[in-house]
């Protein structure tokens, strides 16, 4: 199962009505892997946030499958994210005070009881696949690369149909970056997930089905 994306007349503005992002039309096939690149400040993170329904002052339509997330209520968008989207943040966004496993399996705290076991098992399996040391009580002392991998594991734990990843290999050395890229692409392609990935890493971008370039808030 995977979802296609169709964006029309998307516009995201600041509180002062300055346009951050203007996307007239964007289509991504179900199960495709799309790379996005562009200079710093171009609006790449803003685009990913918008696709997850995380931005305010947003107009147009963002249709994942049959669902226009902009027409959903705040709670509806939240549910949609929980069930369908895995998000990897540019700055990881982990709970410093929780362990790697607790971070990766965070959703079990609010998932139905029956899903708690599988979530925990998946999180554990992903962390060991990614080679994250499991002997830390909290993630606070862990390195940027280790955090990055925990963040990717967290995004994959719920087995979502869509993965939105913001520079997931930015803090890693070449070898680790390549391994993580392999793991991420592997689990996406195997399960036919739709992937939208922002990166400056040409090697990683080269493995995507399509590459889009964003500049000054517009797709070239």
């Amino acid at each position, binding site marked *: 199962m995977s979802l296609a994306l169709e964006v029309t007349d998307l516009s995201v503005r600041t509180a002062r009505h300055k346009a951050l992002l203007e996307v007239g039309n964007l289509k991504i096939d179900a199960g495709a892997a799309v790379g996005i690149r562009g200079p710093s400040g171009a609006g790449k993170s803003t685009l990913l*946030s918008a696709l*997850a329904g*995380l*931005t*305010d002052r947003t107009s147009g339509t963002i249709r994942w499958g049959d669902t226009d997330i902009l027409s959903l209520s705040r*709670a509806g968008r*939240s*549910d*949609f*994210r*929980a*069930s369908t*989207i895995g*998000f990897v943040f540019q700055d990881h*966004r982990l*709970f*410093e*005070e*929780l362990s790697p496993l*607790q971070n990766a399996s*965070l*959703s*079990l*705290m*609010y998932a*139905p*009881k029956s899903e*708690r076991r599988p979530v925990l098992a998946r999180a554990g399996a992903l962390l060991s696949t990614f080679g994250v040391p499991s002997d830390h009580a*909290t993630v606070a002392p862990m390195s940027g690369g280790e955090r990055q991998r925990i963040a990717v594991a*967290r995004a994959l734990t719920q087995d979502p149909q869509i993965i939105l990843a913001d520079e997931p290999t930015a803090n890693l050395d070449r070898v680790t970056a390549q391994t993580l890229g392999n793991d991420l692409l592997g689990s996406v392609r195997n399960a036919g997930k739709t992937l939208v990935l922002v990166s400056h890493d040409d090697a990683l971008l080269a493995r995507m089905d399509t590459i889009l370039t964003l500049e000054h808030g517009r797709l070239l």
Partner: protein
Amino acid sequence: MMALWNNLPGGLQDTVFVLALLVPAVALCAGLWRGFAPGPLIRALLWRYRWTNLGYVILIAISIGLSIAIVMAERGLREGSATAADKFDLIVTAPGNETTMMLATVYLRPTAMPLLSGDVYNDIASAENVAMAAPLSFGDSVNGMPIVGTIADFVSHLGDGQIQGRMWQDEAEAVAGALSGLHIGDEVAPAHGIGDDADNDAHGDFHIEIVGKLPPTGSPWDRAVIVPIESVWHTHGLASGHPPDRANQIGPPFDPAYFPGTPAIVVRADALFANYALRSAFSQSEQTMAFFPGTVLARLHSILGDIRRVMSWLTIVTQCLVGMSVLLGLFILSRLFSRQISLLRTLGAPSRFVVCVVWSYNLTLVAAGTVLGILVAWAATAGIAYRVSNLMGFTITTRFESMDFAFIAAFLSGVTICALLPILVSLNATPVQNLND
């Protein structure tokens, strides 16, 4: 339903009432936690901000503790002073200020009092329905504790007949109060006067032996040395109360011709109803005045009660201020969480889960502060009771009443429900605004 309620024992009713006050908080808690397992996250957040949390808990504990302590101490003062006056049914003195006379006799405050003659004493002692008429005599002291002269019957009455050791047999023997620090067999030399003016040498080398000890009565008499009234008269070079041929007699009857006078007589009637008749009988003479210490105390307490009403308004105002600062504190703590809140929302956690995490965090702090506050209240009241007991001589009770727990439960419920407000406000801060901070 009402009948069922009325048939419950009082203690159970109070417990049910206190629990009922907690129901809203418990129901809210159950509703928020249903289906979620936020424990590890809440624990981790509590641990992460432990020092802030500790300071906050202590703040709540002190403010709750002190406001309960004030109520408890006032109640203890009222009950303690009443208990101290329990054994003094009716007091007869020369006319004067009842409060002053009561303070002098029941609470042993040193006071210069006019004397009643032997004839007056005999009239009272021989009146109908009088079971006991105990003359009192004050003035000397031992180690700063008053020596009180009276008759054996009154000592037995004070101790409910439970004297350790034995009653005195002659004027050189004494019964000591429970808190006097004296033991049976101790010998003490009386000093003339009491307090800073006491003169240790005025009575030569006259010594008193402690032969008995009273059980605790909760009154200033616990810190007194009680001797035969003849002993006090004798050491002051006065007549012994008895004719020369019976000069060594201890206790009544007294001979008016040799009676040096007494400032106060404690009267006990043989039946409760007779007390009122005796009071009016002894109040009619120009030489005497009779009063119930309980009535005088009640009058004092009603003044205290007026103060209490003012205080209870103050307490309510302080409580509102405490409640408001608690909420403000929760507001600030919730801001501390804005990153965590926005992250949870970004990941798609339901709003109820986010509210559950922050609310449970708050509840933990407020509940911990409240429990600690009960300890603070107890400790503060015990401290006040100790100081006041030393100062006033009577024992102040330190105990919680169901009203205290009702107050605590209401506070807890009120604050936890109001705590939803700052959380809902934080929740409305949109994820992405906070993410871009």
